[in-house]
């Protein structure tokens, strides 16, 4: 009988896993389950080019380098279908439509979904942004003409949406509940520096400002936001970007370990015949000494590929579990965010730093590099419009360089 691998999740991690399975010679059935109706597409442009209207949705279809492109992978699609349960003993995935998909190997790549703000469920004109459908709804609202856009959350998605809306000529206010945007992630100084970028472009940023509720007009359309400080704010369009929750609901009761994601070992292995990758996966990083879950584009690719190789080793019985003997997945995470005319890049880990030091440029000039130290190591690097240096320092994080070596590299020792 032909072997079957089921990939649950039809976005970047799932697709790259499927691609790697084929590249490594797996010639059985690969069934890909995705709850969106679309074939895999690239999400980063959703908050930028597609939202701006400069790219149509056809521009973001994910390409495959194999001969014949996506069709060349001969995938067995289940699009517009949601996985609802997993029975790891029977090796079956249950779909909402009633189908039971038996598998020899399973890749869990169900990603994450935006957190909702209470009170927005039945509101028209209030959105989160994760999917192409979300993006097209927001873009259609922006197309209706200049209006007052309120972005809730000054994280990276919220900031990109604010920048795109502002560039399109809308009046934009960003609300952030914390006193410093991205303070926990980047530290107060760097978080503040990123927040100030909005001010350069005439976007109002209100820090330490929580949302108490919404007031709707006719048809349930949002008209006004009530703020926790008692004030109000008129809004024609609200976009909420307050983080995401990993999609593990369908794994409840499966017996798999769930803890802010599905828990893998250091090699992306979850259980016999099961691996996980992308936003939904949490794994112990030896490099950083912590359980990590990374919501970056780059991680979806590299973890998807790694998980595919790990799964094939599992199916071949060449990597006995527990799998510490298997090659660990231990990358230096990297991502970028484009806002206005600036490119922000972060490599490694910036949270929990003992020190943050600007080693090049000046945040006030919106062109700089900052290094993050934990103990006597460089663990992270943040750059604005400094891509070359970012990659140089990323290399130092990659080979676990000491802090003093990093400072020597910067000429700052």
């Amino acid at each position, binding site marked *: 009988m032909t072997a079957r691998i089921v990939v649950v999740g039809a976005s970047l991690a799932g697709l790259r896993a499927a691609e790697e399975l084929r590249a490594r010679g797996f010639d059985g059935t690969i069934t890909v389950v995705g709850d969106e109706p679309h074939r895999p597409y690239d999400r980063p442009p959703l908050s930028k080019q597609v939202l701006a209207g400069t790219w149509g949705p056809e521009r973001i279809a994910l390409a495959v380098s194999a001969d014949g492109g996506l069709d060349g992978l001969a995938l067995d699609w289940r699009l517009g279908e949601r996985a609802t349960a997993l029975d790891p003993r029977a090796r079956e995935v249950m779909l909402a439509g009633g189908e039971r998909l038996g598998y020899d190997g399973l890749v869990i790549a169900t990603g994450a979904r935006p957190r909702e703000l209470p009170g927005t469920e039945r509101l028209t004109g209030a959105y989160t942004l994760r999917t192409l459908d979300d993006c097209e709804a927001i873009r259609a609202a922006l197309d209706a003409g200049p209006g007052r856009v309120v972005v809730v959350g000054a994280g990276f998605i919220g900031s990109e949406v604010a920048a795109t809306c502002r560039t399109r000529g809308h009046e934009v206010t960003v609300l952030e509940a914390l006193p410093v945007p991205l303070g926990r992630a980047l530290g107060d100084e760097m978080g503040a520096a990123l927040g100030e970028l909005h001010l350069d472009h005439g976007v109002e940023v209100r820090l330490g400002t929580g949302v108490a509720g919404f007031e709707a007009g006719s048809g349930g359309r949002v008209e006004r936001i009530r703020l926790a400080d008692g004030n109000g704010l008129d809004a024609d369009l609200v976009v909420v970007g307050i983080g995401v929750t990993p999609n593990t609901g369908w794994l409840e009761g499966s017996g798999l370990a769930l803890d802010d994601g599905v828990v893998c070992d250091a090699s992306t292995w979850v259980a016999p015949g099961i691996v996980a990758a992308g936003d939904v996966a949490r794994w112990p990083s030896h490099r950083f000494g912590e359980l990590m879950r990374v919501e970056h584009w780059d991680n979806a690719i590299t973890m998807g590929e790694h998980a595919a190789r790990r799964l094939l080793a599992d199916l071949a019985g060449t990597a006995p579990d527990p799998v510490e003997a298997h090659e660990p997945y231990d990358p230096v995470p990297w991502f970028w965010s484009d806002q206005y005319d600036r490119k922000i890049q972060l490599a490694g880990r910036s949270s929990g730093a003992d020190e943050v030091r600007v080693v090049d440029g000046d945040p006030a000039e919106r062109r700089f590099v900052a290094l993050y130290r934990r103990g006597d190591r460089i663990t992270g690097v943040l750059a604005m419009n400094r891509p070359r240096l970012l*990659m140089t320092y990323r290399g130092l994080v990659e080979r676990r360089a000491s802090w003093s070596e990093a400072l020597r590299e910067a000429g700052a020792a």
Partner: protein
Amino acid sequence: MGYRVVVDFDLCESNARCMEAAPEVFEVRDDDFLYVLDETPPDSLRAKVDEAVRRCPKAAISIVDE
């Protein structure tokens, strides 16, 4: 049979992942622009160039076999 590296500079955003993968071929300079150092690299660099193609967030790099 050789190959040619083609960069779509309308797509390139200077993320510099290509430079990281294949510094012999790609260089992002201090002006933040990407420069292709060798448009027809030797076969010995093909794996690195393939990696650069895969790592580009904008899918701005392609390889033309010739």
